[in-house]
């Protein structure tokens, strides 16, 4: 059969088939049969390259006009059938107030968030992050920090022991010594990490908790600088309206030593049960590095001065969010973790 005849035959079939179509579904089927990727029209197109050059143009035009004709007819038919079908379909209204399909999303632990916030503030002040072992030699936890054996201040530092001179660090101050042993001044470091003390667990105590220790050593560093740096931290972390108060205290590894309070953010300093009606809450301990500590790491205590500070991560997090039971941090209840 010659091609033009074949096209004519197709045309006839089309008329017949269209007349027989009464459902929209059949119209779609018809469209695919002729116009689809593997449809009749495409099959015809594929023949073009096999023809003699002079025949190609004519045949091409014929196929194209056939394609246009079928397209028009089919679209018209679909339109007609759609119009007929519409009244039968129930009207659906898309409810835009249905809840969105939320992807799963998790959270960092609130203590991690606090540590990251603290790290970020101090990173902007030029402090690097350092780490040290949690299972420590007694020397780093005590002697090097100017806490000799049988010293009454050891009472304040009850400790888990592994064996005679190996213990679980009870403070991150151990990292100070490890840094200074390795590095010469200037030093600007903070050391976050886990610490351990044999305290019976209750709403306020945990045998494991987190601290962030800070250390700055250089020539000409003063107590005024310590106040300045901690003031920057407190204003950045807790807010510009928060007041800071320094109180003399005692730590064997700093002299002079201070405890630092901030004005109670819950009551605005008026007094509430969080601040024991004093208007102030203690958030960290600090002081100028004791010359004996410098001596332990062979620094010249006349040439260099420095300050150190340490804060409890749980305590700060509890203050920030109004959490009143430290155990929540380690129960890991999804209903707790999802709140932060």
């Amino acid at each position, binding site marked *: 059969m010659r091609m033009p005849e074949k096209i004519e035959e197709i045309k006839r079939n089309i008329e017949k088939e269209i007349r027989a179509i009464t459902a929209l579904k059949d119209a779609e089927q018809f469209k695919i049969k002729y116009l689809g990727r593997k449809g009749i029209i495409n099959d015809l197109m594929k023949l073009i390259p096999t023809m003699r050059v002079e025949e190609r143009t004519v045949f091409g035009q014929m196929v194209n006009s056939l394609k246009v004709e079928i397209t028009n007819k089919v679209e018209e038919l679909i339109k007609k059938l759609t119009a007929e079908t519409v009244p039968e379909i129930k009207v659906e209204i898309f409810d835009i107030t249905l809840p969105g399909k939320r992807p799963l999303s*998790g959270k960092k632990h609130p203590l991690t968030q606090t540590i990251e916030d603290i790290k970020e503030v101090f990173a902007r002040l030029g402090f690097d*992050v350092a780490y040290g072992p949690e299972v420590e030699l007694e020397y780093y936890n005590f002697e090097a920090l100017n806490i000799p054996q049988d010293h009454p201040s050891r009472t304040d530092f009850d400790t*888990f022991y592994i064996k005679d001179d190996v213990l679980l660090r009870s403070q991150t101050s151990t990292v100070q010594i490890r840094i200074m042993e390795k590095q010469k001044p200037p030093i600007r470091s903070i050391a976050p990490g886990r610490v351990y003390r044999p305290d019976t667990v209750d709403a306020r105590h945990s045998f494991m908790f987190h601290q962030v220790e800070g250390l700055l050593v250089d020539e000409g560093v003063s*107590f*005024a600088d310590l106040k300045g740096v901690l003031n920057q931290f407190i204003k950045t972390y807790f807010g510009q309206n928060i007041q800071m108060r*320094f109180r003399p205290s005692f730590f064997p590894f700093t002299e002079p030593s201070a405890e630092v309070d901030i004005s109670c953010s819950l009551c605005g300093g008026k007094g509430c049960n969080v601040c024991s009606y004093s208007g102030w809450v203690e958030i960290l301990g600090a002081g100028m590095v004791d010359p004996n500590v410098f001596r332990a790491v062979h620094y010249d205590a006349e040439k260099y001065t420095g300050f150190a500070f340490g804060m409890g991560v749980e305590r700060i997090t509890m203050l920030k969010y109004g959490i009143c039971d430290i155990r929540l941090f380690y129960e890991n209840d999804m209903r707790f973790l999802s709140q932060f």
Partner: protein
Amino acid sequence: MKISFNWLKEYVYFYLSPQELAKRLTNVGLVVADIKPVEDDFCLDIEVTSNRPDCLGIIGIAREVAAAVGGSLHLPEVHFITTGDDISEFIDITVEEPILCPCYTARIVRNIAVGPSPEWIQKRLKCIGLRPVNNIVDITNYIMMETGQPLHAFDLDKLTGQKIIIRRARSGEEIVTINGARRALFHDMLIIADGRRPVAIAGIMGGKETEVSESTRNILLECAQFEPRQVRRTSRALGIASDSSYRFERGTDPEGVDYVSRRATKLIKDYAGGEIAGGVINIRTGRQETKRITLRMERLHKVLGVEIKRDVAIDILTKLQFNVLNDVDNFIDLEVPSFRGDVCREIDLIEEVARIYGYNSIPTKTSISVRGSARNKYEIVEDTIRQCLTGLGFYEVKTFSIVDTSPLQSLNLWSEKDGIDIANPLRQEESRLRTSLLPSLVSVKRYNMDHGTEQVRIFEIAKVYLAGNKLPQEKTCLSILVDTDFLSLKGMVESLLLNLGIPLKQEWTRFNKSGLFMDERAASIRMDNTVLGYLGEASSVLGFKMQSSLAEIDMDLLTERSNFGKKYQNIPQYPPVFRDLAIIVSEEVTWASIEKCIADTKVPFLEGINFFDVYRGKQIPAGKKSIAFNLCFQALDRTLKSEEVDNVQQVILDTLHKTLAAELRKA
């Protein structure tokens, strides 16, 4: 330490309300934790730091008030008249351990009348929470609270052999202390003995048999100094802590002993009558040198960062009863009062000046230089992992490093050796350092199941502790627990690796750890023959209702191998050619071997090998499987021609056939 507000006023004049006083004391380092009204008085609860035993007496607090507020200090008079025979007629005292007892004084009062103490003493003792007993006991307590120096009164007539010996306990010796408890004593403990037996544990507690009672007529009043460390050790060993041991272990004033003895003797005479025996027994060995320290004003300014005037500094130190010896050219030589055992160095003087000057009067400045700080590699890895996993819907958890010794905790993934035990655990439940984080994650999942949350995706980054030499090896691990199958978790881990710049060249080998992982569905992951971690589906013995998978990865190795040095690769300008293939191979043939076989052909243009399906069924013979995958071909300089790809593809198929007996599956 609890003090009475009215009592304090006896030694220093001030016109402050208890609340205002509390504020001033807090600002010099004596934190007033509580103020409680008691009748017409107030009880102030003061936190005294362990370096300040001088403030464990009201006079010490008064001294601080005088320095901080400005009033002058008044100490009670201690003059009295002695009558009767000399003390040496009644007692003979020997100090056998002069190092442990550098000072021992005794006075004797005879023919006293034991009875209730006067109203005003009782009232003050009750205000600070002490129960009045009788005039003698009350007076010794009163004086201890006033001066910080403990005393002890013996019933003189009950001391055997008219003797007091300060010596070490002998093995087998015992004492019944005043609280009625019988204590066995050991050789390293210092005791007070009479001619026959121990009558007191030195500085800690007296004995029941020689205590003052209703029938006591004559008393011996001991006022001594005991070596702090010895008191602390004995107190701890016996488990006895008393107001007395608390003070002795912090250190008492060596120069104050006689004053306190006389003060108590006078009060006893005044309120219990009797006659004071002539003289005193005062045995002192090794008198402590008075400490002299030079304060350099320049150093003071340097450390504090503020120019405090010389006169101001001198005034502060004088009020604290430091004695100015010399004062030239901004060098101030000072003598430290004997009750300030904590002050030995210039820096201690600087603190004294700063404390009274007021920490809050020191400027808040930041003159420290500008310095950049970048995250170290470990921090970047940690941040990346947290970001990836929270993005995938994971919650980060934190669990205890100290765990129990249950079989689950003893699975020992990383080492054959058991975990390290704590020598002094609080409870059996927390007695060992963990060797894996996974058991803790299992507990967290169970906890949440019990509280109504079935589905959890959790991870933790923390250390495990593996037995080492002196100190254990602390390995930081990443552990994951998720409610998916093996391959989904494997995919998450792979995407973590890619995010850390680690190519997926790990070797996954079958791994067995029943009790944790399901058999056949767990793997150890190795990188260049080092274990990177373990991953598997949760064993049914863990009791989870839904399919879950677990993984633990060595973060230290991840950090070491991570690579954040990124370099831009040109995006190809020409389209790639994809070929979908399905091959039939034996059951034993793994995807890893197929992938390797294809890669090993090193054919040109091959850019990617992507698995997409494994099929077993009707058209596939038994013992075989069909594996479908997709190959990506790409040339950088042109569009590949079909024939070029055909040729390469044929090489691949031939190799697969030769190496793995793979047959191309016909459609």
